């Protein structure tokens, strides 16, 4: 208001002298214009707030839908495992028993960098396992969300059924999901083509929950404080400067 009246004063001073009648009309016109501008601005602000609210609200709805929808099959894993029992405090091991080298990976199914790691380097590790020279230890740490723990439990259930590796890969590929029991059972259907009765009850009753907790505790005891963490033959492996090429060289496979 004060700005406007100042501006009007300025205008009055600056304007060329003119008959009082037209000057008053001019002032009235200026005032009306200023009023209109003020109204326009208010309309603009309200419109912008409404549009922003709609964008954010729509985004939240979209994200909610993305998190709660069903999983998709994904690319699948080239490595096919066979049923194995999980053992308390012990990681899940993929690969031949006699493989001379071991790569150990600590990852949470909801940790952003673990998801990137799996996408970038997972296929290389699959290849290395297939050479018979490498075993992979999977330590599914679960500390981020309830979904992380559900997923770790389901991963163990899938491993006992014999489709653990493909299931693990698919968990990472669908990491946008919150991981409730329904989604985890659905994922088995996508990966395995059918859902074994024992798998569904294993997921619904969190039958491997204690195992998942033991993995958390053992990992911490081993000095693993964050995910992803990688060790090669027991030695810490630096992820900071890692590329596909450098990991391929370590594993002795084509990048």
């Amino acid at each position, binding site marked *: 208001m004060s700005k406007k009246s100042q501006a009007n004063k300025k205008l009055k001073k600056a304007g060329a002298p003119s008959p009082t009648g037209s000057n008053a009309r001019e002032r009235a016109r200026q005032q009306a214009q200023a009023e209109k501008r003020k109204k326009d601005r208010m309309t603009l602000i309200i419109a912008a707030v409404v549009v*922003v609210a709609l964008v954010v609200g729509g985004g939240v709805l979209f994200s909610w839908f993305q998190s709660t929808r069903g999983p998709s099959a994904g690319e699948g894993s080239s490595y096919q495992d066979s049923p194995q029992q999980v053992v308390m405090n012990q990681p899940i091991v993929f690969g031949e028993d006699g493989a001379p080298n071991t790569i150990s990976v600590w990852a949470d199914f909801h940790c952003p960098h673990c998801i*990137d790691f799996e996408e970038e380097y997972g296929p290389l590790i699959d290849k290395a396992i297939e050479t018979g020279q490498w075993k992979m230890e999977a330590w599914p740490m679960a500390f981020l969300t309830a979904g992380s723990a559900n997923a770790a439990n389901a991963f163990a259930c899938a491993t006992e059924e014999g489709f653990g590796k493909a299931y693990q890969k698919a968990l990472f590929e669908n990491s*946008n999901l919150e991981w409730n029991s329904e989604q985890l059972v659905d994922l088995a259907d996508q990966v395995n083509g059918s859902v074994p009765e024992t798998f569904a009850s294993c997921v619904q009753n969190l039958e491997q929950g204690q195992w998942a907790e033991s993995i958390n505790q053992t990992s911490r005891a081993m000095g693993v404080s*964050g995910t992803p963490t990688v060790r090669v033959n027991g030695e810490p492996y630096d992820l900071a400067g890692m590329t596909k090429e450098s990991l391929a060289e370590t594993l002795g496979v084509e990048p």
Partner: protein
Amino acid sequence: MTATTATTAPPGPTTFTKAQPWISLVARLALAAIWLVSGLLKVGSPQQSVMAVQAYELPLPSGLEHLIGWGLPWFEIALGLLLLAGLLTRPTAIVSALLLVLFIAGIISAWARGLTIDCGCFGGGGQVAPDETSYLPDLVRDVGFALLAGWLILFPRSKFSLDRFGEDEEFVVHDEENE
């Protein structure tokens, strides 16, 4: 003589008044790019985004953490679009500055509590190894962004902006004076 000085003097076409709308244009577009990139990198991964929020371990209910994780990237995109168009530049700059101050406070708080997390500023987020944190560079960067927003709060008038009508009444009046 006096009449001419009266009409041309008020703003005075100094170097600064000439350069300011261009500087503000650069600041506006830079801040727009920052919000758009940061939002677009995150909208595709809502679950990761929630994870990044949860990593701060703030005393927030889980529902609110989800709302922030899901909504914030879209809010950033909206701010970016407003700045790109130059629509309501000053209010958008004020909101941008407030948001950046919140981010800065969040990072300082995570650092002070000894958390080892990625700030999740441009996607990513979550726990990282202690030697992989980058709190100081993140803070310096965010303070730089806040300075851009601060400039726009002080000098919202910029070239190629839709704010020509309505936003800056003083300047509109000056234009009429020059006619």
